[in-house]
């Protein structure tokens, strides 16, 4: 683990660095460390250790960071209940998720109110489930209740139920069955939907002598595969593979993953990653984007912005174009009808399948779509370029930007909102106390000034000044240099290895639900390496990742 020191330096250092030349280097050290490991570390995911346990990514021993118990995200809850029980639950019936970085992971302790919500939502879902139909029973009777336990419950629990569990649930059925099958079945569903095996990712693993770690059991592996690749419950095939103990080797995991990636659920799940990464999902979370004072925008437009991002990623997955390069620079999109009007796109340019090609260079990849440009900044601010630049620095280069020093005068000059950002933020470029950090942020944000607060393309500011979208990336990234406008920014990000290393960390957070530690370096490196190769194919990277230690093992009970 020759790189662990650099990585640790990043974790402790990233919290306190300033921008005087140290921040960016430490940030990229981390990315380069993980990258470097991949190239020097020998056997990777597909490195032929399929035959047995052990064989970590560095070729010596398996290693993985501390396990993290987590609850389903609100979206996962809603999806699973819909997929398995056919019942619609409003996302807002559950409390807001807590996050790891940008991703809903719910690793913090549950709150009393939340336990209450789970109880209450379980009751209302249970009242609506048609148990006999869900389990495809010919007759609604006790045998049907047993069928529910054998089949439906296994999907909710993501494993076969233990006999004591089935017995207890069947006793509930009997209690309610006095009032009829529906009541009996609904009591079972009520309990199942509050079960730790449904609400939490319960993982114990099986002791693995070769590594000293716990290797995930077949059902636990199936559950992870389903949540990472589909964002929902495993299907019967996956559970079948687990039941026949056919998810033990990397080869078996790989086969299942390949099958799952052909399913439409994978494309939607991949889109979900980007909706969270680029904050686009906030657009439909009430209150998260506060722009009413700018005139507001309708719920229909908000939803259309989310749908555009989703459609773009789904299309890319379907056509094997889901590469980092393409997602960050593609000059086409799928704006739904309300957004076509909102963005002033000519209806004639919309193809039959909804695709619009931006031959004018006005859009290039996810960053320039309405969703991200509206979500960032989330509130009307006169300093939008700072915010957009900061987000790109932090979330695509994984370089932490410290807050401004104390004692600043934040008073906005008159007409700040309509003044060109470059003029408004001129001091950031010259003042010694500002420029260390601000040049790293503002000069990226300026390149996105062609988009107003709702992501509408503009050539000029409200008073008529022409937008100057020239930008500069500097500060020890691998793509440092001048550029002009969103199209060139997209192209630079698309080819940056640092961005891909950073995306590897982001995918790790999304998939594992916690911050990577030095013990995860090998696994992150594999993800990063796959993303750095060629155009950086996302499905290939995920396929490699599900074979890593971080995906297959957990630490034992501490």
């Amino acid at each position: 683990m020759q790189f662990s020191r650099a990585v640790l330096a990043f974790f402790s250092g990233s919290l306190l660095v300033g921008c005087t030349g140290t921040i960016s280097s430490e940030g990229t050290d981390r990315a380069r460390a993980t990258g470097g490991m991949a190239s020097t570390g020998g056997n990777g995911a597909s490195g032929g250790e399929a035959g047995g346990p052990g064989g970590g990514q560095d070729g010596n021993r398996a290693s993985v960071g501390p396990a993290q118990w987590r609850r389903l995200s609100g979206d996962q809850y809603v999806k699973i209940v819909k997929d398995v029980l056919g019942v619609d639950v409003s996302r807002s019936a559950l409390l807001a998720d807590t996050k790891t970085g940008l991703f809903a992971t719910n690793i913090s302790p549950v709150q009393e109110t939340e336990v209450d919500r789970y109880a209450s939502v379980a009751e209302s879902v249970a009242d609506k489930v048609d148990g006999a139909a869900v389990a495809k029973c010919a007759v609604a009777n006790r045998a049907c209740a047993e069928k529910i336990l054998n089949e439906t419950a296994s999907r909710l629990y993501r494993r076969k139920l233990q006999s004591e569990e089935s017995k207890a649930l069947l006793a509930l059925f009997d209690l309610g069955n006095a009032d009829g099958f529906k009541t009996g079945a609904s009591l079972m569903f009520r309990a199942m939907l509050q079960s730790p095996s449904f609400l939490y990712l319960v993982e114990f693993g099986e002791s693995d002598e070769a590594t000293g770690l716990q290797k995930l059991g077949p059902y636990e592996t199936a559950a992870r595969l389903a949540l990472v690749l589909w964002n929902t419950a495993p299907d019967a095939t996956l559970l079948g593979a687990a039941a026949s103990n056919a998810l033990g080797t990397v080869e078996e995991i790989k086969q299942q993953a390949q099958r799952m990636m052909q399913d439409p659920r994978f494309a939607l799940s991949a889109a979900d990653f980007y909706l969270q990464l680029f904050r686009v999902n906030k657009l439909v979370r009430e209150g998260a984007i506060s722009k009413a004072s700018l005139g507001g925008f309708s719920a229909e437009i908000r939803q259309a912005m989310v749908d555009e991002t989703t459609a773009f990623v789904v299309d890319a997955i379907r056509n094997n174009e889901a590469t980092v390069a393409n997602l960050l620079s593609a000059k086409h999109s799928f704006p739904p009808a309300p957004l076509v009007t909102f963005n002033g796109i000519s209806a004639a340019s919309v193809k039959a399948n909804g695709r619009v090609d931006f031959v004018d260079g006005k859009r290039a990849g996810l960053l320039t779509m309405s969703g991200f440009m509206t979500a960032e900044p989330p509130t009307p601010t006169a300093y939008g370029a700072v915010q957009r630049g900061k987000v790109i620095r932090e979330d695509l280069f994984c370089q932490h930007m410290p807050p401004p020093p104390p004692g600043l005068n934040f008073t906005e000059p008159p007409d700040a909102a309509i003044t060109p950002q470059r003029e408004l933020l001129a001091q950031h470029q010259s003042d010694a106390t500002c420029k260390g950090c601000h040049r790293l942020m503002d000069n990226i944000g300026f390149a996105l000034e062609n988009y107003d607060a709702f992501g509408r393309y503009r050539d000029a500011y409200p008073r008529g000044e022409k937008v100057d979208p020239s930008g500069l990336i500097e500060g020890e990234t691998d793509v440092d240099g001048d550029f002009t406008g969103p199209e060139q920014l997209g192209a630079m990000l698309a080819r940056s290895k640092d961005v891909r290393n950073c995306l590897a960390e982001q995918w790790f957070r999304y998939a594992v639900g916690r911050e990577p530690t030095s013990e995860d370096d090998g696994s992150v490196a594999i993800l990063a390496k796959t993303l750095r190769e060629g155009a950086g194919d996302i499905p290939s990277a995920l396929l490699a990742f599900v074979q890593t230690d971080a995906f297959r093992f957990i630490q034992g009970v501490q």
Partner: protein
Amino acid sequence: MANQGSRRKFMANIVGGAAAARLMPLMPRAAFGATDAPKRLLCVFSPMGYLENFFWPRGEGADFTLGETQTALTPYKDKLLYMNGLMHSAHNTGDRRAERPGVVWDNEHGNGIAAVFTGNMKDLQGKYSLSESIDQTVAKYLYSQNATAYKSIALADGNGGPGPHSSCFYSGPGQPVTPITLPRVAYDTYFDKLQITGPSASDAAAIAAATRRKLVNQSVVDTVRSEFNAVCARLGVRERQLCDAHLAGLRLVEKRVQDVGQVNLAQCAKPAQPGAGNASDFEGALRANIGMIRAAFACDLTRVATLQLGNADGGVDLAGFANQHGTTHAMGDNPSATVESDHKRWDQFYAKQWLYLLEQLSSVPEGNGSMLDNTLVLFGSDTTTGQTLARGAHNGFRFPMWIAGGGNFAFRTGRQLMFPVMPPGTQATAANKWGYDYKGGKYLYHNALLVSVAQAFGMNINAYGSHDQGVGGVPGLK
């Protein structure tokens, strides 16, 4: 007062049988009187403070007139208590930073919102407050004396989800309380299944139905708990804590299902059921939330509630109003008339909402007074917008943390107390604007007020949060 719809449903579930022994607890009881009304706490957060010159009353003691933007509250003037001159203790000032080298400091909003009810600063990542908030401190204490159905309830609008700039209430270090952000969800949680028993509750068949429901509910809880117990037992220390947190929540669920969610207080009535969708009408949603807090207090479901408006990022977001955050930032030394008037509109908007809140609490009679007299309402914000000191943007001077109600047990209201803001003759300058020497005791930190609040509920607390000056509570409140 029973909800008719709910009682019909209740009666429809009758399965027969009688349980005379259970008649007693179902008998309706009188309203709370002068002596047995519970002490309650309501903490209210609104972002971006107020424009100070137009917020603070003129005058001192009982002889004062309300600030220009707050005149809507005049009918309740004798229920209000202003402490003019407190300093927000964990603001983004130089001395705060010096205390914790290496800390990632959030901006003034982020630090402000985390510290307003906790009196403590943020964790090393600049995310969440390092300690619990006063509502939870009081809630735990009151619950230990009298276990209401809920220890506390937390309501907010859609801006109130957990986050470094949106969490102001904490159940423990780094543990923000996640509020319910949709009125309908709050209704479903607290009132949908609540059985308010009226005279007909003595009906034997109704009691049998309730008994049956209790048995069923308990069986479900038992099943769930046994699964949790089996899982928890196998977890390591850290994860065991997460599992235990869930079991603790389950105990509260259980307590409620044992009571079959019944309340028999005469003044208890369900609030109107809010619409199911997202509330685009901010004011309507706020009023629905206020209605639910009033009902939850009247039904004695809880004695502590929190209400959060907006957050410390964008403030409150309302069509027809200038962007709130931008407006506060635009307040320079010589703000334009437009900016000042925009800011005043916001502050008047708040006053209008507070008026509604006070009206609602006053509308429930308790003893010779009303629910308001038995409810200490503590208003707080992340910052203030200065005009006399540290002008312009947000700061912690003359921090607008103020009180309404609670006169029956807490403080003598109908007054403005003045606390020295700065030494005589000191002028605000660019140099001393952000870094006064607080250790010289020139400013009374708002921690002292949090201490006073805890003491008002009978708690033996003399310090609160991390910047407590050791002065105990705010002098002169009683």
